[in-house]
């Protein structure tokens, strides 16, 4: 906020207009700190569900919520990077599930050591993301269309490779399910998967906010022409974002195997919309250039808290979707309202 200077300086014509109404002030605060809105929703939801059901705020239940959101949070992290560049990734679920199937296949049918199977799985996920990146940057196709195509391709390959069969975790080397093992902290049980997830968020929080790459991601999503003219190689930025997202989805696949104690080709279709939901609830704008990973973490937690809290409150699964859908609409409307500040 600019302070009100009384004497007209040389740049007096450039004074920022002051807003006085409460609504406009809230709009400005949210505009400056877009994480506050989602954070308020998360805290309100936690308080409300705790009052409804005493079991909600128990260490055991909160451990469950965190374990439940871990996979979605990692996928939503990759999705956030892409949405920040004004793109969208519909193939997130397909890449994650196909990567988990590939990892399982490598270490069971192909008989490779666990670590190698895992690294190869990461490489495959990265390659799938890179394919999206190539199609978006070289062929100049809209990300929606590209990832709609690759979604279908990866899901079909997924069925081919897996033979529509689930691989049990007990048939795999222990490293594959290591992400699902827990560390007890009092009565709270933290999984290694959740630790990896939190470390990834910390890493990308740093990368987006404190490195030139991060600034370039925001600038590319904000206004790609302006970014190009400022000397940013926007094609490289976009390619890097899709590729890194692919790697994140593969890490998500590893955590998924640990969480389910199996690799199943039949999960994951809902991950596309869930990851986008988490990003949007976290205040990242679908128009690009605005938001961040902290919001996405909160957004993923909001989804998890709502699902779990409504479950404990005895609300049927169908109505849980209804509630989350409503939340998304509110979040998007809020985003539109906040963006109006600039005009």
């Amino acid at each position, binding site marked *: 906020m600019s302070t009100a200077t009384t004497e007209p*300086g040389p*740049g007096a014509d*450039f004074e920022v207009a002051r807003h006085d109404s409460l609504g406009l002030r809230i709009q400005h605060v949210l505009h400056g700190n877009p994480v506050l809105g989602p954070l308020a929703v998360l805290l309100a939801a936690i308080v409300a569900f705790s009052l409804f059901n005493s079991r909600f705020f128990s260490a055991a239940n909160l451990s469950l919520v965190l374990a439940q959101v871990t996979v979605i949070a990692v996928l939503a992290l990759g999705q956030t990077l892409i949405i920040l560049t004004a793109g969208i990734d519909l193939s997130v679920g397909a890449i994650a599930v196909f990567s988990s199937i590939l990892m399982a296949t490598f270490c069971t049918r192909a008989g490779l050591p666990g670590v190698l199977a895992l690294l190869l799985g990461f490489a495959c996920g990265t390659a799938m993301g890179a394919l999206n990146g190539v199609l978006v940057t070289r062929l100049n196709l809209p990300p929606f269309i590209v990832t709609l195509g690759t979604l279908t391709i990866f899901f079909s390959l997924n069925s081919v490779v897996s033979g529509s069969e689930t691989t049990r975790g007990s048939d795999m080397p222990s490293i594959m399910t290591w992400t699902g093992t827990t560390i007890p902290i009092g009565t709270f049980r933290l999984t290694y998967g959740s630790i990896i997830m939190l470390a990834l968020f910390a890493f990308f929080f740093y990368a987006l906010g*404190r490195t030139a790459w991060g*600034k*370039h991601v925001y*600038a590319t999503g904000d206004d790609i022409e302006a970014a190009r003219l400022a000397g940013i190689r926007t094609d490289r930025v976009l390619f890097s974002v899709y590729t890194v997202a692919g790697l994140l989805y593969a890490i998500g696949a590893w955590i998924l195997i640990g969480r389910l104690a199996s690799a199943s080709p039949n999960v994951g279709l809902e991950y596309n919309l869930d990851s986008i939901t988490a990003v949007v609830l976290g205040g990242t704008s679908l128009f690009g*250039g605005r938001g961040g990973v902290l919001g996405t973490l909160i957004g993923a937690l909001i989804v998890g808290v709502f699902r779990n809290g409504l479950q404990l409150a005895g609300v049927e699964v169908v109505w849980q979707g209804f509630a989350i859908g409503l939340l998304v609409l509110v979040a998007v409307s809020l985003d539109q309202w906040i963006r109006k500040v*600039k005009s």
Partner: protein
Amino acid sequence: MTVTTTPVLAARGITKRYGRVTAIENSDLELYPGEILAVIGDNGAGKSSLIKALSGALIPDRGEIYLDGERVHFRNPMDARAAGIETVYQTLAVAPGLDIADNLFLGREERKKGVLGSVFRMLDRGHMRSEAKRHMSELGVATLQNIGQAVESLSGGQRQAVAVARSAAFGSKVVILDEPTAALGVKEGNRVLQLIRDVRNRGLPVILISHNMPHVFEVADRIHIQRLGRRATVITPTSHSMSDAVAIMTGAAPPPDPVA
């Protein structure tokens, strides 16, 4: 005018065709040290093609470009920028979501010294912010107190000021401004004109492309009139009136003399 000094930037016989359409034909331009050269012309006169050739955004089919008397070849805008020519484009000047300091350093961010910068790639935000503040206040835009303010919260004139400050901060030879006052109100337009003068007074010559005749006549030292893909003539605000300029631009009057 000081015809004896070497032009900072000169174009000779620039020609660009798109298929059978000729955008510019054998066009010249000279920019001398310490001047504001306005480039005016009707739509389709080839002024933007000419400017694009100077800023590296377009590779001419024929013709030469000289910077300080040396022949240069720009393959892209980065080449021109590396040579010291900064261009502010009409509408695409800034990234609205980033703050003022980020915008000033966009595409040439500075990293911290030592391991933090080389391994962890950490940006030197403190230094960039203080530098940004210095550049802004040098141009008399000191009232933008919060250098960490998102550019989208600024008015059109303030955004243009950020873009102009960026070009002045990094342009070592020439600043090219494409319609910098087009989208602005009267007051803000005047403010930006003052900024342009400030840039010139700091020793950087400026090429100003504008449709706004009062603005052109207010700040320009010389006025390059482009017509039908060529330079029709160069006039000065003292030697000719606005209506003379418009008449030459549209072909209603012959150019006074075949180019100085």
